[in-house]
């Protein structure tokens, strides 16, 4: 089945208050073109899910698209510093930060992939995260009587994953680290792939052992070369240092909108969904 959609179409399927799992990790292979389109379409009160987010979460917080963030870590990497817009949004109370232990995001997504309401987590034993968050609870193991911590499952409505190669049916190949993306594709109700390249049936067949997400799990394929920029995309491009430093320095919402607009041409270059292989 042919699943190519334009960026506008695919982002148009995301309703406000959706739970959105974002692929990639910190500054690597984040689905930034899709994130920018969510900003352009002025989505509201999204619940974002990621083990460790950076520019993606920061940008959506900057434009007021976020209601809740479930993550273990939100920050740029060492040399780029802290995420100003996320911090501000949480500190003003506009965004609810559900702090996880990275692993508990993974556990909560594993829960969704197996459709169970919670997952036991053996490592989460001490501290105030347990006290202050209603998505953690300590119960008695019915087999041994010992205490065990449960994390409530997070069921993403959609996972948005940027990959290097995907065919028109949705068979997707991630080059390099896969982070939580494969898990997200199994945890989410719908899967949207944005891809550097739309590859031919022949090429995908030649590389079938490398397929990370089989087509039948995928709802839409969006062709966006550069779709992770200014984050990195392995084998395609590195982090765009200038853009990131510029973004972190921005204060006003209008400046953010201008920043996003500068990507319009690149993000929309395949908007007509012309076959390219």
């Amino acid at each position, binding site marked *: 089945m042919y699943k190519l959609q334009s960026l506008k179409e695919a982002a148009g399927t995301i309703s406000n208050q959706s739970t959105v799992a974002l692929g990639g*990790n*910190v*500054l*690597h292979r984040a689905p930034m073109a899709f994130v920018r389109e969510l900003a352009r379409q002025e989505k509201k009160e999204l619940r974002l899910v990621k*083990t*460790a987010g950076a520019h993606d979460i920061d940008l959506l917080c900057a434009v007021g698209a976020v209601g809740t963030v479930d*993550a*273990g*870590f*939100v*920050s740029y*990497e*060492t*040399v*780029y510093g*802290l*995420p100003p817009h*996320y*911090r501000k949004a*949480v*500190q003003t*109370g506009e965004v*609810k*930060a559900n*702090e*996880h*232990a*990275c*692993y*508990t995001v*993974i556990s909560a997504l594993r829960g969704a992939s197996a459709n169970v309401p919670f997952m036991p*987590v*053996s*490592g*989460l*034993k*001490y*501290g*105030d*995260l347990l006290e*202050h968050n209603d998505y953690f609870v300590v119960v008695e193991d019915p087999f041994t009587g010992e205490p065990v911590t449960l994390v409530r499952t997070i069921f993403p409505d959609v996972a948005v994953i940027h990959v290097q190669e995907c065919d028109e049916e949705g068979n997707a190949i991630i*080059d*390099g*680290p*896969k*982070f*939580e993306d494969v*898990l997200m594709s199994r945890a989410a109700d719908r899967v949207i792939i944005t891809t550097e390249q739309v590859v031919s049936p022949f090429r995908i067949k030649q590389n079938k052992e490398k397929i990370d997400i089989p087509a039948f799990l995928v709802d839409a394929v969006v062709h966006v070369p550069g779709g992770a920029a200014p984050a*990195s995309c*392995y*084998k395609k491009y590195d*982090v765009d*240092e200038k853009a990131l430093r510029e973004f972190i320095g921005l204060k006003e919402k209008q400046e953010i909108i201008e920043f996003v607009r500068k990507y319009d041409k690149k993000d929309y270059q395949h908007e007509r969904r012309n076959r390219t292989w």
Partner: protein
Amino acid sequence: MVNYRISDLMTCTIADMLKDGETVFHGVSSQMPMVAMHLARKLHAPNLVHLNIPGGVNPSSVKQSSYSSAGSDLVEAGESYFPLDQIFDLSMRGKLDVAFLGGIQFDINGNVNASVIGDYHKPKVRLPGGAGSAVLIPTAKKAIIWRTKHDPRTFVEQVEFVTTRGNLWKIVTPLCVFVFKNGKLQLDSIHPHTTLEEVQKQTGFELIYDEVRYTKEPTAKQLQMLKQIDPYDYRSVEF
């Protein structure tokens, strides 16, 4: 007498804590432990298992890691693939020997805060979050924290929020090494360039120690190897 900087000393001190054959993990924004692990593998711990977020087991080089210690270069240079979710599982099973973790505030009772200053739900300052700390510090056999800042706001009597506590073993700072022993953060050694007075002045709680030991200086061999494995000086990126 050899010539070295604080970042060299800290890196070598960390490397010296690692034993041959141990499984060791570092996360994001962790260039210093990453270089230290590689140093240990090159010198005294060739069978150390180097694990990291992108999943490259025992990367043969960390030279390409520039701004990131979570980049694809670690997989490309790795000997096999073992990603984050499985590293967590490994630690849960008690098979992770050492985890390197960060944090913003630490107190005398070994509590770590990486979450908030102020109220959790309406924080004065929202910190980046503990990342894996809350599950790794309780489960890794030894958790090592490194911190390039040592001041009375970092080392406090009591943290404002307990992100986690557990098997904290050592904390390495630009001034000293703390060891967590008998439920208290104690002075393990102070660095050669500082004094007990300075460490006390920069620490928000009364220092506990039996005797004052000095941190071992980097050896010439270590410094030479550091130049070779970390030519772009990523170990100093936080300074």
